């Protein structure tokens, strides 16, 4: 019999192989994850709600089904976690807000429905910035999420609880959302893989909106293959989400191919100025991996991207004000103060200003479209620095600016604003023992190319196999 700690260090692909062969039960896997959650969450604060008894009952049911030959696929019986922005039938969904602290939805989100259909066991709802409005996971009514690599550091946000959970080995897979950088940033800060597909690939039905024209569902795991195993069951058209696109049955895992020879990788060098030198060094070393795989590295100059951060932030500010308008009028004092101020500012943006911002967005989109005629992927450091201190709060991220500049936050912001697929991968550990990430951004619907490049990178490096000390203490 395998020890609980060992079970938690299995990745999804390994775990599902053992479950399918009945060499390990779902009950054992779920108990191991819940035990680790109980041991670590006092330090991480990564979870808001843990439906433990329900998870144990569902695991037993999964074991019965698998024993009777009704194996549903790679997620069957697997303990997973989801951001507390996704509605879950019968389990409270708070969105990190006091306003919804006791709200128990009657229906599942689309992601929840698909996970249950795939037989996954939801063991916990993860902590986040209130309604997804933030990049730190410190702006939660339920307190800040702590980074497993150093609990004095932020996990990044807004899907910080999901990233921290996976990094600490509390379930091999978690689902989050991204409006600005809320999957890639926490993945980078927590030393794991984070992927968000092209806009419209995964339905957002039943998840609270940060900003409807930029919101995506994304995933966290410790390997690229685990990402595709988690992506296949949840990708697909959903008529309830106006942004959802018709697509072939997802087969991202089957199409994984680490041969990236002749792949063209673009670098937007002007935005690397000001990036921390250790992060820059790790990124440059990462590029050598691609060069070694016979990829072509191409310098790109797309000056329009210097307007991406402020265009994205203005868009999300205006849209989130539209979404939260009624709650803001009636209960503004119940919002986390920083979030409340952001919504207030958004409410002062006029319709004609919002439309001007959308023109700017269109100009940036067309510039990037031309850039992707020349390259397959745009690569950059995911974040300009490793995880800042919780005590530095929002300012620590260094990108809470809406001004045009040549800074790195434009690279973090343009993929979600334009709906491009992006993956963050661990590419180093700095001298303070904190992970650093590289991001690969593809053109629209080039999700498989991004995943294949990520796999090639991961096959040539071992950063994704490192664990924070807290996971093994």
């Amino acid at each position, binding site marked *: 019999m395998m020890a609980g700690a060992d079970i938690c260090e299995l990745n999804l692909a390994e775990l599902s192989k053992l479950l399918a062969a009945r060499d390990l039960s779902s009950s054992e896997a779920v108990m191991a994850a819940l035990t680790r959650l109980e041991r670590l969450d006092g330090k991480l604060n990564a979870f808001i709600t843990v439906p433990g008894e329900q998870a144990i009952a569902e695991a037993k049911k999964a074991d019965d089904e698998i024993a009777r030959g009704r194996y549903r696929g790679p997620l069957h019986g697997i303990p997973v976690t989801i951001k507390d922005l996704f509605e879950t039938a019968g389990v409270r969904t708070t969105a990190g807000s006091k306003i919804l602290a006791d709200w128990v939805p009657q229906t599942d989100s689309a992601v929840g429905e698909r996970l249950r259909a795939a037989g996954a066991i939801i063991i916990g709802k993860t902590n986040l910035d209130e309604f997804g409005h933030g990049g730190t996971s410190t702006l939660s009514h339920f307190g800040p999420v702590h980074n497993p690599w150093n609990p004095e550091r932020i996990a990044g946000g807004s899907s910080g609880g999901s990233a921290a959970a996976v990094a600490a080995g509390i379930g091999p897979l978690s689902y989050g959302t991204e409006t600005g950088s809320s999957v890639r940033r926490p993945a980078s800060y927590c030393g794991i893989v984070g992927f968000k597909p*092209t806009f*419209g*690939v995964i339905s957002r039905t039943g998840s609270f909106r940060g900003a409807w024209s930029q919101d995506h569902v994304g995933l966290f795991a410790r390997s690229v293959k685990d990402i595709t195993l988690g992506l296949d069951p949840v990708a697909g058209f959903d*008529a309830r989400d*106006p*942004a*959802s*696109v*018709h*697509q*072939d049955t997802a087969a991202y895992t089957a199409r994984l191919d680490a041969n990236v020879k002749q792949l063209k990788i673009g670098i937007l060098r002007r935005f690397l100025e000001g990036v921390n030198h250790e992060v820059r060094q790790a990124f440059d070393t990462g590029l050598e991996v691609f060069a070694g795989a016979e990829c072509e590295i191409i310098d790109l100059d797309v000056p*329009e991207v210097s*307007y991406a951060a*402020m*265009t994205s932030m*203005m868009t999300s500010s205006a849209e989130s004000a539209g979404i939260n308008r009624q709650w*803001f*009028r009636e209960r*503004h004092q119940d919002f986390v103060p920083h979030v409340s*101020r952001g919504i*207030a*500012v958004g*409410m*002062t*943006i*006029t319709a004609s*200003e919002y*439309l*001007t*911002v*959308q*023109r*700017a*967005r*269109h*100009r940036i989109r067309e510039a990037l479209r031309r850039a992707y005629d020349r390259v397959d992927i745009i690569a950059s450091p995911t974040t300009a620095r490793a995880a800042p201190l919780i005590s530095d709060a929002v300012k620590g991220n260094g990108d809470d600016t*809406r*001004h*045009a500049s040549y800074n790195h936050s434009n690279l973090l912001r343009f993929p979600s604003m334009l709906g491009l697929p992006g993956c963050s991968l661990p590419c180093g550990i700095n001298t303070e023992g904190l992970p650093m990430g590289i991001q690969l951004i593809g053109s629209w*619907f080039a999700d498989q190319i991004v995943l294949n490049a990520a796999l090639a990178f991961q096959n040539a490096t071992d950063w994704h196999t490192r664990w924070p000390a807290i996971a093994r203490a």
Partner: protein
Amino acid sequence: MKHKDKVANRLALLEGVNFSQAYLDAIAAEIEDLDRIVAELEEFAQSTPWVSQQSQSRGSKA
């Protein structure tokens, strides 16, 4: 229009919600940023077509 009036005009869009003075001061500082950003984006977006995209076609495939 005077700067002070511009801020006051924007604060009027908050639909009559009562805030503390400290809260209003914090918002006012951010609103100053907003005016600058809008001006920058207006200049940047000049001669760009107005966005006229309809919702996703149900018939299209990824």
